[in-house]
């Protein structure tokens, strides 16, 4: 009898809770739709979420199975350099790491973006103005070496960080066309080159 009444309560309560959740979410979507506009290169459709963006828009991370699925999907987006060359010029890479510009509605073109790396990461021995949202990358190449595995992993992480951590804070620099293949090569050199200030004091 007790079981039946518990079940009855559940049956009565749950659809109500679901309906409310659905209603609030529908209201939320309508609110977002009427609250934003296109300005310059920042089109209104930027507000409409990709599936993984929606799944990563909670207070807590989604369950492991969801994370695994997102990571597998994002892994498929990674394009390794067509010519097999992973490294450009570390001096160019440093400029890209320093620049946080690009893709806002006050930027004239969607091209020539910075990597914004220093917003979140410590990188070189001499730059003290670095953020702490991401881990320190100081002496990245020196500490990790440059085996094929670590080089490919690093390329992939820059190209699409979500392939390794579904709800990572880091942008999908390659997949979302924030940086070009050539720019990623320069960043790779900045991280790995023994003469780069990331590795050399």
């Amino acid at each position, binding site marked *: 009898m007790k079981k039946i009444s518990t079940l009855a309560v559940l049956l009565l309560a749950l659809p109500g809770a679901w309906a409310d959740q659905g209603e609030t*979410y529908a209201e939320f979507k309508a609110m977002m739709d009427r*609250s934003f506009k296109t300005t310059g290169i*920042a089109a209104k459709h930027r507000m409409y979420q990709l599936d993984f963006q929606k799944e990563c828009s909670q207070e807590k991370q989604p369950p492991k199975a969801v994370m695994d699925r997102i990571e597998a999907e994002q892994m498929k987006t990674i394009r390794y350099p067509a010519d097999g060359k992973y490294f450009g010029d570390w001096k160019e890479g440093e400029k890209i790491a320093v620049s946080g510009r690009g893709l806002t509605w006050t930027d004239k073109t969607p091209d020539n973006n910075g990597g914004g790396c220093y917003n979140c990461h410590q990188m070189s021995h001499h730059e003290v103005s670095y953020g702490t949202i991401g881990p320190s990358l100081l002496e990245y190449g020196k500490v990790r070496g440059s085996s094929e595995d670590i080089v490919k992993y690093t390329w992939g992480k820059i190209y699409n960080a979500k392939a390794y951590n579904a709800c990572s*804070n880091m942008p999908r620099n390659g997949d979302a066309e924030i940086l070009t293949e050539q720019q990623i090569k320069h960043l790779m050199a900045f991280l790995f080159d023994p003469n780069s200030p990331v590795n050399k004091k």
Partner: protein
Amino acid sequence: MVIRQKYLVAALAVGLAGAPLLAAASDDLLEGINAYREALADGNPSELVAAEGEELWKTPRGPKNASLEKCDLGLGPGVVKGASAQLPRYFKDTGKVQDLETRLMTCMETFQGLDSKAVVNAGWLKGEKEKMAALVAYIVTESNGQKIKIDMRPPQMKKMYELGKLAFYHRAGPMDFSCATCHGDQGKRIRMQELPDLRTQEGAAAGWGSWPAYRVSNGQFWTMQHRLNDCYRQQRTAEPIYGSDVTIALSVYLAATANGGKVMTPGIKR
């Protein structure tokens, strides 16, 4: 001048520091920056903007040639003291939850006969938006030192809070950012800029409680709408419309989370 020297010393220390001292040096630099801010707060340049705003509040304007002195910011007609510490709030006369700026637009329409579109469509710190910033500077100065006191009893406020919280975590755009990307963890920085954790009462009070603010780097007074707009710009989303529901919902979420904290407006920022 003493402060300036301290700042310089900190900067020099950073320049000369070897790698093991780097963390300590960057702490010194932060300390220097914070001391610099404190020094500026003594004689906040917002005072000039606030004086302009007080003048505007009392000066008849618009087709109805009336001042804003009868405007009800929530504590009764004409009451400015402490009013912004209790905003946003639900207003029965409009049937809406309003922040300071949307409430002022209602008053400009009702009492002065001005079209609020002129505010919405103006560029930041230009035309009617410049006037709005001055009014805001005046009004928020009159709540300095008060407690943040948001009335969350009306169901409309509870609804806005829920919507604001969803907006806070909403990841979108080419960089997949949400408000939580930068403001959803403790003790983080972007470059040298410390980030309040806006999920917590302490963090929200530090953030919400110190805006609107005067920005030293560009010599501008920024309203909360302006602040939120620039957050979205840096998130690389589309642009939120001035006074739109998402800006109100986020404001309710932040202010309610900050409830009980101290109002330090107008703040002073880098």
